[in-house]
Protein backbone atom coordinates (compact mmCIF):
# COMPACT_ATOMS: atom_id res chain seq x y z
CA UNK A 1 0.00 0.00 0.00
CA UNK A 2 1.29 3.47 -0.91
CA UNK A 3 2.35 5.62 2.04
CA UNK A 4 0.03 8.44 3.02
CA UNK A 5 1.89 11.67 2.35
CA UNK A 6 0.88 15.31 2.78
CA UNK A 7 0.60 17.18 -0.48
CA UNK A 8 2.02 20.49 0.73
CA UNK A 9 5.38 19.48 2.19
CA UNK A 10 8.50 18.17 0.44
CA UNK A 11 8.18 14.45 -0.16
CA UNK A 12 11.71 13.53 0.90
CA UNK A 13 11.27 15.21 4.31
CA UNK A 14 8.16 13.11 4.91
CA UNK A 15 10.00 9.95 3.92
CA UNK A 16 12.76 10.82 6.42
CA UNK A 17 10.17 11.29 9.20
CA UNK A 18 8.42 8.08 8.33
CA UNK A 19 11.56 5.92 8.32
CA UNK A 20 12.78 7.64 11.47
CA UNK A 21 9.49 6.74 13.13
CA UNK A 22 9.81 3.11 12.02
CA UNK A 23 13.27 2.97 13.57
CA UNK A 24 12.52 4.64 16.93
CA UNK A 25 9.33 2.61 17.35
CA UNK A 26 11.36 -0.57 16.90
CA UNK A 27 9.77 -1.74 13.63
CA UNK A 28 13.34 -1.83 12.43
CA UNK A 29 15.63 -3.04 15.22
CA UNK A 30 19.11 -1.60 15.84
CA UNK A 31 21.52 -3.18 13.35
CA UNK A 32 18.68 -4.54 11.19
CA UNK A 33 19.08 -4.45 7.43
CA UNK A 34 16.77 -2.02 5.60
CA UNK A 35 15.00 -2.78 2.32
CA UNK A 36 16.66 -1.43 -0.83
CA UNK A 37 15.78 1.96 -2.28
CA UNK A 38 13.99 0.20 -5.10
CA UNK A 39 11.88 -1.98 -2.79
CA UNK A 40 11.00 0.82 -0.45
CA UNK A 41 10.18 3.33 -3.19
CA UNK A 42 7.89 0.76 -4.83
CA UNK A 43 6.17 0.15 -1.49
CA UNK A 44 5.76 3.86 -0.81
CA UNK A 45 4.88 4.59 -4.47
CA UNK A 46 7.40 7.41 -4.63
CA UNK A 47 10.23 8.30 -6.96
CA UNK A 48 13.39 6.24 -6.28
CA UNK A 49 15.59 9.36 -6.42
CA UNK A 50 13.48 10.94 -3.69
CA UNK A 51 13.83 7.83 -1.53
CA UNK A 52 17.57 7.92 -2.19
CA UNK A 53 17.65 11.52 -0.99
CA UNK A 54 15.78 10.54 2.20
CA UNK A 55 18.28 7.75 2.86
CA UNK A 56 21.17 10.15 2.33
CA UNK A 57 19.65 12.48 4.91
CA UNK A 58 19.23 9.64 7.42
CA UNK A 59 22.82 8.60 6.79
CA UNK A 60 24.03 12.12 7.48
CA UNK A 61 22.25 12.07 10.82
CA UNK A 62 23.91 8.72 11.59
CA UNK A 63 20.65 6.85 12.09
CA UNK A 64 21.33 4.50 9.19
CA UNK A 65 24.66 3.21 7.98
CA UNK A 66 25.65 2.08 4.52
CA UNK A 67 27.69 -1.11 4.55
CA UNK A 68 29.62 -1.76 1.43
CA UNK A 69 28.75 -5.45 1.35
CA UNK A 70 25.49 -5.58 3.21
CA UNK A 71 23.31 -2.72 1.99
CA UNK A 72 21.96 -0.30 4.57
CA UNK A 73 21.38 -1.06 8.22
CA UNK A 74 19.94 0.75 11.21
CA UNK A 75 22.62 2.07 13.56
CA UNK A 76 23.51 -0.17 16.52
CA UNK A 77 23.80 2.92 18.70
CA UNK A 78 20.72 2.37 20.89
CA UNK A 79 21.45 5.55 22.80
CA UNK A 80 21.17 7.63 19.65
CA UNK A 81 17.86 5.98 18.79
CA UNK A 82 16.54 6.69 22.29
CA UNK A 83 17.64 10.29 22.04
CA UNK A 84 15.80 10.79 18.74
CA UNK A 85 12.76 9.08 20.25
CA UNK A 86 12.82 11.46 23.18
CA UNK A 87 13.23 14.46 20.86
CA UNK A 88 10.20 13.37 18.88
CA UNK A 89 8.21 12.90 22.11
CA UNK A 90 9.18 16.42 23.20
CA UNK A 91 7.96 17.82 19.89
CA UNK A 92 4.59 16.12 20.36
CA UNK A 93 4.32 17.36 23.95
CA UNK A 94 5.18 20.85 22.83
CA UNK A 95 2.32 20.77 20.33
CA UNK A 96 -0.05 19.23 22.87
CA UNK A 97 0.66 21.87 25.49
CA UNK A 98 0.37 24.68 22.96
CA UNK A 99 -3.09 23.40 21.96
CA UNK A 100 -4.27 23.00 25.54
CA UNK A 101 -3.13 26.51 26.43
CA UNK A 102 -5.02 27.74 23.40
CA UNK A 103 -8.09 26.15 24.95
CA UNK A 104 -7.38 28.13 28.11
CA UNK A 105 -6.17 25.40 30.46
CA UNK A 106 -3.51 26.04 33.06
CA UNK A 107 -0.62 23.66 33.67
CA UNK A 108 -2.30 22.21 36.79
CA UNK A 109 -5.57 21.65 34.95
CA UNK A 110 -3.73 19.96 32.10
CA UNK A 111 -1.99 17.66 34.53
CA UNK A 112 -5.33 16.74 36.12
CA UNK A 113 -6.90 16.16 32.70
CA UNK A 114 -4.11 13.84 31.68
CA UNK A 115 -4.56 11.85 34.86
CA UNK A 116 -8.35 11.60 34.43
CA UNK A 117 -7.91 10.58 30.83
CA UNK A 118 -5.40 7.93 31.81
CA UNK A 119 -7.76 6.44 34.39
CA UNK A 120 -11.05 6.67 32.47
CA UNK A 121 -10.19 6.14 28.84
CA UNK A 122 -7.07 4.06 28.92
CA UNK A 123 -8.06 1.82 31.80
CA UNK A 124 -5.09 2.88 33.96
CA UNK A 125 -5.18 2.59 37.75
CA UNK A 126 -5.29 5.50 40.15
CA UNK A 127 -1.89 6.30 41.65
Amino acid at each position, binding site marked *: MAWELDSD*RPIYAQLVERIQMQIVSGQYAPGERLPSVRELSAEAAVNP*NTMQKAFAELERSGLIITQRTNGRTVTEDAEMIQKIRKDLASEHLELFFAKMMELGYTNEEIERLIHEFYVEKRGGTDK
Partner: protein
Amino acid sequence: MSELVEISNLCKSYQSGSMAVDNVTLTLPKGKIIGLLGPNGSGKTTLIKMLNGLLTPSAGSLLINGMEVGPETKALVAYLPDRSCLAENMKVSEIVSYFEDFYADFSRERAEQMLNNLGIDASAKLKTLSKGTKEKVQLILVMSRAADLYLLDEPIAGVDPAARDYILRTIIQNYNPEATVVISTHLISDVEQVLDEVIFMKYGKLVLYTSVDNIREQHGKSVDAYFREVFAC
Protein backbone atom coordinates in the same frame (compact mmCIF):
# COMPACT_ATOMS: atom_id res chain seq x y z
CA MET B 1 28.04 12.95 -20.87
CA SER B 2 25.08 12.75 -18.56
CA GLU B 3 22.71 14.95 -20.55
CA LEU B 4 20.23 12.78 -22.38
CA VAL B 5 18.23 15.40 -24.22
CA GLU B 6 19.45 18.79 -25.36
CA ILE B 7 16.86 21.12 -26.81
CA SER B 8 17.90 24.58 -27.95
CA ASN B 9 15.75 27.37 -29.33
CA LEU B 10 13.30 24.79 -30.60
CA CYS B 11 10.29 26.07 -32.54
CA LYS B 12 7.43 24.42 -34.36
CA SER B 13 4.83 26.38 -36.26
CA TYR B 14 1.90 24.85 -38.05
CA GLN B 15 0.46 26.03 -41.35
CA SER B 16 -2.16 28.10 -39.60
CA GLY B 17 0.74 30.24 -38.41
CA SER B 18 0.35 29.31 -34.75
CA MET B 19 3.50 28.58 -32.79
CA ALA B 20 2.89 25.23 -31.10
CA VAL B 21 6.38 25.24 -29.59
CA ASP B 22 7.97 28.64 -29.22
CA ASN B 23 11.72 28.95 -28.64
CA VAL B 24 12.15 26.23 -26.03
CA THR B 25 15.61 25.58 -24.59
CA LEU B 26 15.83 22.70 -22.17
CA THR B 27 18.32 20.04 -21.06
CA LEU B 28 17.10 16.76 -19.58
CA PRO B 29 19.47 14.54 -17.59
CA LYS B 30 19.53 10.76 -17.34
CA GLY B 31 17.83 8.90 -14.53
CA LYS B 32 14.87 11.19 -13.94
CA ILE B 33 11.12 10.84 -14.05
CA ILE B 34 9.84 14.12 -15.40
CA GLY B 35 6.29 15.45 -15.67
CA LEU B 36 5.48 17.49 -18.77
CA LEU B 37 2.60 19.65 -17.63
CA GLY B 38 0.53 22.36 -19.23
CA PRO B 39 -3.03 23.20 -20.20
CA ASN B 40 -4.57 21.92 -23.43
CA GLY B 41 -2.81 23.29 -26.47
CA SER B 42 0.34 24.27 -24.61
CA GLY B 43 2.61 22.28 -26.96
CA LYS B 44 3.26 19.15 -24.90
CA THR B 45 2.35 16.65 -27.61
CA THR B 46 4.13 18.68 -30.29
CA LEU B 47 7.31 18.66 -28.19
CA ILE B 48 7.07 14.91 -27.65
CA LYS B 49 6.48 14.31 -31.35
CA MET B 50 9.60 16.25 -32.24
CA LEU B 51 11.60 14.20 -29.73
CA ASN B 52 10.57 10.98 -31.41
CA GLY B 53 10.89 12.24 -34.96
CA LEU B 54 7.21 12.27 -35.90
CA LEU B 55 7.41 16.02 -36.48
CA THR B 56 10.35 18.03 -37.72
CA PRO B 57 11.25 21.28 -35.99
CA SER B 58 10.66 24.57 -37.81
CA ALA B 59 13.76 26.00 -36.17
CA GLY B 60 16.26 25.19 -33.45
CA SER B 61 17.98 21.95 -32.61
CA LEU B 62 17.30 18.80 -30.70
CA LEU B 63 19.84 16.17 -29.67
CA ILE B 64 19.28 12.83 -27.95
CA ASN B 65 22.43 11.30 -26.51
CA GLY B 66 24.31 13.80 -28.64
CA MET B 67 22.67 12.65 -31.88
CA GLU B 68 20.23 14.38 -34.18
CA VAL B 69 16.81 12.72 -34.21
CA GLY B 70 16.89 9.84 -36.70
CA PRO B 71 16.93 6.04 -36.88
CA GLU B 72 19.68 5.82 -34.23
CA THR B 73 17.74 7.87 -31.69
CA LYS B 74 14.47 6.10 -32.46
CA ALA B 75 16.09 2.89 -31.25
CA LEU B 76 16.68 4.62 -27.92
CA VAL B 77 13.23 6.16 -27.53
CA ALA B 78 10.09 4.33 -26.42
CA TYR B 79 7.00 6.33 -27.26
CA LEU B 80 3.45 5.99 -26.02
CA PRO B 81 1.20 8.00 -28.34
CA ASP B 82 -1.87 9.84 -27.15
CA ARG B 83 -4.04 7.71 -29.40
CA SER B 84 -4.19 4.07 -30.41
CA CYS B 85 -1.67 3.07 -33.04
CA LEU B 86 -2.12 -0.70 -33.09
CA ALA B 87 -3.89 -2.87 -35.67
CA GLU B 88 -7.32 -3.69 -34.25
CA ASN B 89 -7.43 -7.07 -35.95
CA MET B 90 -4.33 -8.45 -34.27
CA LYS B 91 -4.32 -10.54 -31.15
CA VAL B 92 -2.47 -9.15 -28.13
CA SER B 93 0.08 -11.99 -28.40
CA GLU B 94 0.65 -11.18 -32.08
CA ILE B 95 1.30 -7.55 -31.25
CA VAL B 96 3.79 -8.65 -28.59
CA SER B 97 5.62 -10.72 -31.23
CA TYR B 98 5.50 -7.76 -33.60
CA PHE B 99 7.14 -5.50 -31.03
CA GLU B 100 9.67 -8.21 -30.14
CA ASP B 101 10.61 -8.43 -33.80
CA PHE B 102 10.74 -4.67 -34.23
CA TYR B 103 12.71 -3.54 -31.17
CA ALA B 104 16.00 -5.13 -30.13
CA ASP B 105 15.48 -3.93 -26.55
CA PHE B 106 12.02 -5.49 -26.14
CA SER B 107 11.52 -8.07 -23.38
CA ARG B 108 8.75 -10.55 -24.11
CA GLU B 109 8.98 -11.90 -20.59
CA ARG B 110 8.34 -8.48 -19.09
CA ALA B 111 5.37 -7.89 -21.40
CA GLU B 112 3.81 -11.24 -20.58
CA GLN B 113 4.28 -10.70 -16.88
CA MET B 114 2.57 -7.33 -16.99
CA LEU B 115 -0.31 -8.64 -19.14
CA ASN B 116 -0.73 -11.37 -16.60
CA ASN B 117 -0.66 -8.98 -13.63
CA LEU B 118 -3.35 -6.85 -15.19
CA GLY B 119 -5.42 -9.88 -16.14
CA ILE B 120 -5.32 -9.22 -19.88
CA ASP B 121 -6.00 -12.22 -22.12
CA ALA B 122 -3.14 -12.38 -24.63
CA SER B 123 -5.23 -14.43 -27.07
CA ALA B 124 -7.91 -11.73 -27.37
CA LYS B 125 -8.10 -9.58 -30.46
CA LEU B 126 -7.46 -5.95 -29.81
CA LYS B 127 -10.83 -4.85 -31.17
CA THR B 128 -12.63 -6.93 -28.54
CA LEU B 129 -10.95 -5.04 -25.69
CA SER B 130 -12.30 -1.98 -23.91
CA LYS B 131 -10.74 1.42 -24.48
CA GLY B 132 -8.96 1.34 -21.12
CA THR B 133 -7.61 -2.17 -21.68
CA LYS B 134 -6.26 -1.17 -25.10
CA GLU B 135 -4.42 1.69 -23.42
CA LYS B 136 -2.99 -0.70 -20.88
CA VAL B 137 -1.76 -3.02 -23.65
CA GLN B 138 -0.12 -0.12 -25.42
CA LEU B 139 1.62 1.06 -22.27
CA ILE B 140 2.81 -2.47 -21.47
CA LEU B 141 4.41 -2.68 -24.92
CA VAL B 142 6.23 0.60 -24.39
CA MET B 143 7.38 -0.22 -20.85
CA SER B 144 8.65 -3.64 -21.94
CA ARG B 145 11.44 -1.98 -23.85
CA ALA B 146 14.79 -1.18 -22.23
CA ALA B 147 14.94 2.30 -23.75
CA ASP B 148 16.98 5.34 -22.74
CA LEU B 149 14.11 7.74 -23.08
CA TYR B 150 10.45 6.94 -22.49
CA LEU B 151 7.97 9.47 -23.82
CA LEU B 152 4.54 8.80 -22.38
CA ASP B 153 1.82 11.04 -23.74
CA GLU B 154 -1.14 10.88 -21.34
CA PRO B 155 -0.42 7.33 -20.11
CA ILE B 156 -3.04 7.18 -17.36
CA ALA B 157 -5.90 9.33 -18.59
CA GLY B 158 -8.13 6.51 -19.78
CA VAL B 159 -7.58 3.85 -17.14
CA ASP B 160 -9.19 3.20 -13.79
CA PRO B 161 -7.51 4.34 -10.53
CA ALA B 162 -6.33 0.83 -9.57
CA ALA B 163 -4.65 0.37 -12.95
CA ARG B 164 -3.19 3.87 -12.61
CA ASP B 165 -1.48 2.81 -9.40
CA TYR B 166 -0.19 -0.32 -11.08
CA ILE B 167 1.14 1.65 -14.03
CA LEU B 168 2.91 4.18 -11.81
CA ARG B 169 4.36 1.35 -9.75
CA THR B 170 5.56 -0.27 -12.96
CA ILE B 171 7.30 2.94 -13.93
CA ILE B 172 9.01 3.08 -10.52
CA GLN B 173 10.01 -0.56 -10.62
CA ASN B 174 11.44 -0.25 -14.11
CA TYR B 175 13.41 2.74 -12.95
CA ASN B 176 16.89 2.68 -14.38
CA PRO B 177 19.50 5.34 -13.53
CA GLU B 178 20.50 5.47 -17.19
CA ALA B 179 16.99 6.12 -18.49
CA THR B 180 14.64 9.06 -18.27
CA VAL B 181 10.86 8.95 -18.36
CA VAL B 182 8.85 11.94 -19.57
CA ILE B 183 5.16 11.78 -18.65
CA SER B 184 2.74 14.29 -20.11
CA THR B 185 -0.48 14.48 -18.14
CA HIS B 186 -3.28 16.58 -16.69
CA LEU B 187 -3.67 14.27 -13.72
CA ILE B 188 -0.95 15.92 -11.68
CA SER B 189 -1.98 14.82 -8.22
CA ASP B 190 -1.92 11.18 -9.34
CA VAL B 191 1.63 11.28 -10.62
CA GLU B 192 3.18 13.89 -8.38
CA GLN B 193 4.80 11.48 -5.91
CA VAL B 194 6.46 9.60 -8.70
CA LEU B 195 8.06 12.60 -10.36
CA ASP B 196 11.52 14.08 -9.78
CA GLU B 197 11.00 17.16 -11.84
CA VAL B 198 8.29 19.03 -13.67
CA ILE B 199 8.21 21.07 -16.86
CA PHE B 200 5.43 23.65 -17.11
CA MET B 201 4.47 24.81 -20.61
CA LYS B 202 2.07 27.54 -21.67
CA TYR B 203 1.28 28.71 -25.22
CA GLY B 204 4.25 26.75 -26.53
CA LYS B 205 6.70 28.42 -24.17
CA LEU B 206 8.65 26.91 -21.31
CA VAL B 207 7.35 28.46 -18.09
CA LEU B 208 9.21 26.47 -15.46
CA TYR B 209 11.54 23.51 -15.08
CA THR B 210 12.21 22.53 -11.48
CA SER B 211 11.98 19.70 -8.98
CA VAL B 212 8.77 18.66 -7.23
CA ASP B 213 10.29 19.18 -3.78
CA ASN B 214 11.49 22.64 -4.80
CA ILE B 215 7.93 23.68 -5.56
CA ARG B 216 6.73 22.24 -2.27
CA GLU B 217 9.54 23.90 -0.33
CA GLN B 218 9.25 27.31 -1.96
CA HIS B 219 5.50 27.56 -2.22
CA GLY B 220 4.32 25.25 0.57
CA LYS B 221 1.87 23.55 -1.75
CA SER B 222 1.62 20.56 -4.01
CA VAL B 223 2.57 20.75 -7.69
CA ASP B 224 -1.12 20.23 -8.43
CA ALA B 225 -2.13 23.25 -6.34
CA TYR B 226 0.72 25.34 -7.75
CA PHE B 227 -0.26 24.41 -11.31
CA ARG B 228 -3.83 25.56 -10.66
CA GLU B 229 -2.44 28.87 -9.44
CA VAL B 230 -0.03 29.42 -12.35
CA PHE B 231 -2.60 28.44 -14.97
CA ALA B 232 -5.70 29.89 -13.32
CA CYS B 233 -8.27 30.78 -15.98
